[in-house]
């Protein structure tokens, strides 16, 4: 689906931002990219929707070399929600912001209406429809960005720090929505520092540091590797710290419910 082969990227001033990246992200997977500030996470994903082209090496999306396609062609398949909502929002009202992509890709009216109603309801934005998105709070702006991109239903969805500014209920909506996208055969890539959120999502994890991929693995394998966590500037989820702290060596409980059972059993034995 997405394939990086020996990708190097240098910024215009010559500094190296990605160093010999080899990475395959399969179709219908959920992948998280984690790492410290400046690790190259955003630079990496900008290669997927063609905003950046590799200095050397190749990035292929569904076997197509991104060098040979325009950002416009790629963005039909690859939707990206930026970290900073202010970089994305531009329309005069929330409604027009969400409709922009839908109109631009020339979908039929019925589809546009259906998708619009769906996302505006999902992200609880109905009451802001006719307000300028720039007048909303930080968390609300982020929801407008998510709604605008999810509206046109791209096959690959890149979310850069989607939980920033979101409260617990919205995080749960987002979590369920990502799982729903997965069921609908989409490919989702999340950049996030929100480790507690990632533990609930249980994605495949790509760890990065200094423009390199350090290690790839499932959530448990990555988050229980203390040395790796330190290297990439991440703190393990509280659930792992608690259960390792009380001496659990085997598999970690996944949910709150499991955790209660494990502790009750410990107390009773």
């Amino acid at each position, binding site marked *: 689906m997405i394939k990086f082969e020996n990708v190097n990227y240098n910024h215009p*001033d010559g500094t190296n931002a990605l160093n010999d990246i080899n990475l395959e992200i399969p179709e219908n997977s959920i992948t998280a990219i984690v*790492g*410290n*500030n*400046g690790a190259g996470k*955003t630079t990496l994903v900008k290669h997927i929707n063609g905003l950046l082209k590799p200095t050397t090496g190749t990035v292929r999306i569904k076997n197509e070399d991104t060098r040979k396609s325009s950002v416009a062609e790629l963005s039909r398949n690859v939707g990206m929600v930026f*970290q*900073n909502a*202010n970089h994305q929002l531009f329309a005069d009202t929330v409604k027009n912001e969400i409709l922009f992509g839908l109109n631009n890709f020339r979908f039929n009216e019925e589809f546009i209406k259906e998708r619009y109603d769906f996302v505006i309801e999902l992200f609880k934005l109905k009451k802001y429809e006719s*307000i*300028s998105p720039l*007048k*909303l*709070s*930080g*968390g*609300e702006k982020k*929801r407008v960005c998510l709604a605008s991109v999810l509206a046109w239903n791209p096959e690959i969805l890149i979310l850069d*720090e989607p939980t*920033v*500014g*979101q*409260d*617990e*209920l*919205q*995080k749960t909506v987002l979590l369920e929505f990502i799982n729903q996208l997965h069921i609908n055969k989409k490919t989702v890539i999340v950049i996030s*520092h*929100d*480790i*507690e959120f990632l533990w609930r999502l249980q994605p495949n994890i790509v760890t990065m540091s200094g423009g390199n991929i350090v290690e790839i693995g499932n959530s448990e394998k990555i988050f229980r590797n203390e040395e790796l966590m*330190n290297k*990439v*500037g*991440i*703190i393990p*989820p*509280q*659930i792992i*710290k*608690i259960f390792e*702290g*009380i001496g659990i060596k085997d598999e970690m409980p996944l949910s*709150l419910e499991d*955790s*209660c059972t494990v*502790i*009750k059993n*410990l*107390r009773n034995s």
Partner: protein
Amino acid sequence: MSVKDLIRFNDFSFKYNSRNDKVLENINLSINSNEITVLAGPTGCGKSTLLRAIVGLIPNMYEGEYTGEVIVDGIKIKDAEIKEIAKRVGFVFQNPENQIFMFSVERDIAFGLENLSLEQEIIKKRINEIMETLNITHLAKKAPHELSDGQKQRTALAGVLAMQPKILILDEPTSLLDPKTATEFMELMNKLCKEKGMSIIIVEHRLDLVLKYADKLIILSNGKIISNDTPENVFDYKKDVIPELSIPFSTKLYRELANNSMKFSKPVTGVEDMIKEVKK
């Protein structure tokens, strides 16, 4: 020593001209000095508005209906000159791009200091100290557009800290920082508060990272204050907590277990406490 009423809201309400509903309604609130106060609540609950009212952006920059009063360090914000407020309060915005504007990191930090008419040597010393503390010395000559979001956030903070304000206000300061940098950042805030006596107010969703350092936790919901107490008291298992709040996992686990008749010596607000309680 902590002094009561460093910041005081008396029957304060505010409605932006651009929105139909009141964002804050009838707020009565006291914030102590020399403490770290964390402010949390659902998106759009009025957190940023509350901060703007403390630093004087409301009513000076944002137009709307203003009733009641906000008193900060003895001065009435509504009637105060921005200069008077700025001497007391430093504000780091949610979006650092609203804050950084000079052509290099070093120049950006210098800007506020030069406005205080300090001697060049003192300015230089303060810039170097703060860049070292925040680990941005290597970025001194870089232009804002060359910085990552995390670096921008630290630059914005440096510009404010260099002014050595009595009260420091931070709107989601760790949102763009990786967890390790965020923890280091909170350690620094703790040091500034406990060693230098700075009073710090932080709006933050990621309670798992900040709760450990919080003396007080204020929870806002729908423009009203629903809790203002120590984190332990706010999260006592006998009390209700609004579902919008991202409670740290250790606290969630404590509340679930305590509600199912497991005994705890006190409410749990962090990983270490939970381990101790279970091992007992």
